[in-house]
């Protein structure tokens, strides 16, 4: 310490190696290392700091690693037999654990003796394990990932042998615990880098299902990384083994389930304040739950968030989206009203468009929707200019809906023409948007402009390649409104050919009506019979897992079929059949004006 001046001069660059209360500058040692004299460097450390061989090598390796010379670090680490050192640590540990079992009731002096021996063991273990860990890190930096992973595994295996019962809390030296935690966190990352996803999967499970005494933040990081891996690796690795199961605990059955469980556990830690808020956890969960159609669970998670974590308007908007996705539009709209209030975020485009859409589906809300749509159009500029067409489309839909409940003819026709203007403006911005084409077709059909309606309906079927059922139905209905029944029937038959059996109900009903209109009652009866069989089969076999993608809006009910049949038979004067059909229909609906009408005729 005599040359304090020179030390202060080089203050920034000089580093020191310290052990056993002595410190030496790194410069001399580094010079020896640079010359390739590892042994000389080592012996100068052994003499200067009174270290044994392994300690000196470990310190040298660390020095090389710190100055970024990972290849050098590897050369140094290769010189010590870490495997042997690890093995040397074990028998004493066994003896240690034996003695602990015996000495549980013995004198304090023996306990103290064990304590110092423990800390000596731990110190030695810490030194060796840190060396192996740094070797793994060095290999990682040289992109030799598999070897790195192997070394990291060695660290964890050794820890497992030193602490066969798992790591006891609060009894492990800080430095050792740090190395263990880092190795636990690093191992799955190394396997991922090595492209060995199967090993990565088991490394994650090993990290999370065994006791490593990880701190909350570290554990949460691993849980999140594992959830992301489960969600996105595209590898179905099977569920964790039942060996991991504490009795009665829930074991996820597949990757997606496991990922969702982990993310929900993380969310709970956030709710409880054990870990910090991490927006990406919420986003991963949002992605996973919306893909599983489980937005109600997402709503619950959003509701449980503490205030201040997410800005309230952001939370309201996300909640509105998840309610709306679950079909709870009323709740969604109430939240959107709050977030679109003039003191909150009145210009949020997503919220405005969603609010307008919800309003466009209800004639009593349509007037409110017009306001949202108008605001959306006004705010669609800059980066969001592409959303102007959507705003116009919503404006058209809301105006059209509003027209339906207007009190005067004058008002109605004004609203209808404004609606048309908006839809026309929307289509001019998005010429290939099939939805607008359908809505124009529907709008014209409702106003009995059948020629225009027909052209849009045809265009829609073309553009969607006939993939949407409602397009076929609109086309057939417009043709039938033009009294072109046979053409309407050709379209209906074509549509039936493009539809799976279970979804043919509405088309069959349409077909029966078309056949009736063409005075072909026998054909119509045949169609009705077919429809009846379908409806009855559906009633019997619809399980909870059956999702109908395209006919949720318009289910055929059995009553309608019986009633239609009754009318047909009565036109044929088959009175006995009429009676049977009416009886069946009455069983389903006791009081019905239509039915009484048919009965009256009968």
């Amino acid at each position, binding site marked *: 310490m005599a040359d304090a001046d020179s030390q202060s001069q080089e203050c920034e660059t000089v*580093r020191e190696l*310290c052990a056993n209360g002595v410190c030496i500058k790194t410069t001399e040692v580094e010079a020896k290392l640079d010359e390739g004299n590892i042994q000389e460097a080592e012996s100068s450390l052994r003499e200067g700091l009174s*270290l044994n061989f392994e300690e000196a090598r*470990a310190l040298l390796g660390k020095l090389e690693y710190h100055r970024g010379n990972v290849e050098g670090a590897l050369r140094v680490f290769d010189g010590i037999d870490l495997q042997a050192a690890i093995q040397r640590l074990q028998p004493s540990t066994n003896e240690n654990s034996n003695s602990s079992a015996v000495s549980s009731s013995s004198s304090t002096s023996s306990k103290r003796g064990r304590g110092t021996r423990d800390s000596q063991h731990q110190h030695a273990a810490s030194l060796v394990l840190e060396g192996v860990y*740094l070797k793994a890190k060095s290999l990682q930096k040289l992109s030799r990932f598999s070897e790195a992973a192997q070394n990291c595994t060695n660290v964890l295996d050794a820890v497992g042998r030193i602490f066969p019962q798992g790591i006891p809390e609060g009894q492990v030296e800080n430095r050792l615990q740090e190395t263990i935690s880092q190795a636990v966190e690093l191992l799955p*990352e190394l396997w991922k*880098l090595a492209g060995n996803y199967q090993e*990565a999967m088991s490394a994650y499970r090993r990290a999370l299902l065994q006791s490593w005494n990880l701190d909350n933040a*570290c554990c949460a990081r691993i849980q999140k990384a594992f959830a992301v*891996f489960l969600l*996105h*690796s*595209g590898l179905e690795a099977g569920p*964790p083994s039942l060996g991991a199961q504490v009795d009665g*605990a*829930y*074991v*996820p059955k597949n990757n997606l*389930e496991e990922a*969702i469980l982990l993310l929900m*556990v993380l969310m709970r830690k956030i709710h409880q304040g054990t870990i910090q808020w991490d*927006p990406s956890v919420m*986003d991963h969960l*949002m*992605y996973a739950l*919306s*893909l599983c159609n*489980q*937005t109600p*669970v997402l709503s619950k998670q959003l509701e449980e968030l503490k205030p201040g974590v997410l800005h309230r308007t952001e939370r309201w908007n996300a909640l509105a*989206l*998840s309610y709306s*996705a679950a079909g709870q539009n009323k709740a969604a709209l109430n939240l959107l009203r709050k977030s679109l209030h003039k003191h909150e975020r009145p210009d949020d485009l*997503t919220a405005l*468009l*969603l609010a307008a*859409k919800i309003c466009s589906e209800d004639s009593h809300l349509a007037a409110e929707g017009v306001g949202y749509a108008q605001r959306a159009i006004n705010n669609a500029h*800059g*980066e969001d*200019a*592409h*959303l102007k*067409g*959507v705003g116009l489309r*919503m404006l058209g839909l809301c105006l059209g809906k509003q027209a339906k409940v207007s009190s005067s003819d004058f008002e109605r026709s004004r609203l209808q023409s404004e609606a048309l203007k908006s839809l026309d403006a929307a289509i001019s911005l998005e010429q*290939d*948007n099939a939805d607008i084409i359908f809505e124009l077709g529907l709008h014209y059909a409702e106003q009995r402009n059948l020629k225009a309606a027909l052209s849009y309906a045809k265009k829609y079927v*073309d553009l969607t*390649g*006939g*993939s*949407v059922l409602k397009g076929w139905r609109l086309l057939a209905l417009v043709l039938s409104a033009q009294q072109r029944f046979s053409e309407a029937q050709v379209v209906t*038959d074509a549509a039936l*050919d*493009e*539809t*799976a059996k279970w979804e043919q109900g509405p088309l069959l009903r349409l077909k029966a009506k078309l056949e009736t209109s063409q005075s072909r009652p026998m054909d119509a009866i045949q169609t009705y019979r077919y429809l009846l069989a379908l409806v009855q089969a559906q009633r019997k076999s619809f399980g909870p*897992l059956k999702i109908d*993608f*395209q006919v949720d809006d318009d289910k055929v009910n059995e009553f309608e079929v019986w009633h239609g049949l009754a009318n047909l038979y009565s036109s044929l004067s088959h009175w006995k059949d009429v009676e049977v059909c009416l009886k069946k229909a009455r069983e389903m609906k006791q009081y019905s004006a239509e039915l009484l009408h048919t009965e009256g005729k009968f």
Partner: protein
Amino acid sequence: MSGSSSSSSSDPDSPRATRVTAVKTSETPPSTSAPDFQPSPTFAPTSETPPPSSASSSSVARSSIQSLSSILSSVPSSLASSPNPSFSLLHDPIISSQISSLLRHPDSGSGDHNLCRWLYDTFHSTDPQLQLVVLRFLPIIAGVYLTRVSRRKSLAGFEAILLALYAHETTARRGQPVTVHVPDLSHSSIYHEAKPSTKTNATELNLAVISSSLEPHGTMRSTKRARIVGVALELYYSKISQLPVTSKIEFCEFCEIWAGQEISNHGDDNNGSNAANKEKRKGRIPLAWELLQPTLRIIGHCLLGPHRNKELYDAASSATKSLYARSLHDIDAKAILATSSLLRLQKMASDPKNNVGYTEIPKVNVITL
């Protein structure tokens, strides 16, 4: 009606059965179906293809490569002599680019398209590695097929392949739905301990249907098109970790085309003469949830999966942006939630602030033992 009854009664358990059905339907076409949807009789089994069960997998692959050489202009001879020919076939960039450009050709995909037939036959070989070769081209097949389907051209070649993939998946799942239980944390799991709560009754598990039950389809009915392609994409996703990166990039590119959404590059859309964007918008297709859901799972993998491919990440990033814009245009709440969360995750992933190395040891000036 005759078409529908014959196909739904066919045996879904064997890919051969589907093949036979496809041929049968074409012989007796439903009276009113459009001509586009008739699979061609050329898909009948021929003597050229060896019976898949009797030959070993690598000889199947070799004969498959041999029949490919009559379709492509050049097939490297090294391919057939490779110790694992199907693996080499899967990863050969020259072969892939030749097949890709043939599939993208304006006249591709008809019933007598010989490449489609090769893909169809190759998928029906029992070698899983060879089936991967077919799956590798699914992005282009599905991409070109769906964007072209409104143009009233025969695409029976593409349809036969897609139906074969659908039938394969139907058989593998025995028609059953894929479900997931969304856990309720009031019950302990392997990853957490629940406080002994007041509720001691059975846990409430939400059953989520990821993919609903599968019915056999012998023909491509237009209203089932999205579902059939969607299920083929589910099959693609289940093998995605084995597929080459270029295939995934092609998928991301088609997502942008399907979304039909130009991502505004401030100002240059004023003239409306941006040719590339116009071309992109031409391919806009209806994005039903049954198609969008598997699409988003694939995009999630491309964006956030454990690969370290910058090109794929970039392709997935821009696909995500397009799909997000599209979900806003459709005002589809579920799609907005899924795509906006991906978009935020993408932004976080690109931010170096979020990439702290926790496994790095801290830099110190005093190194101690």
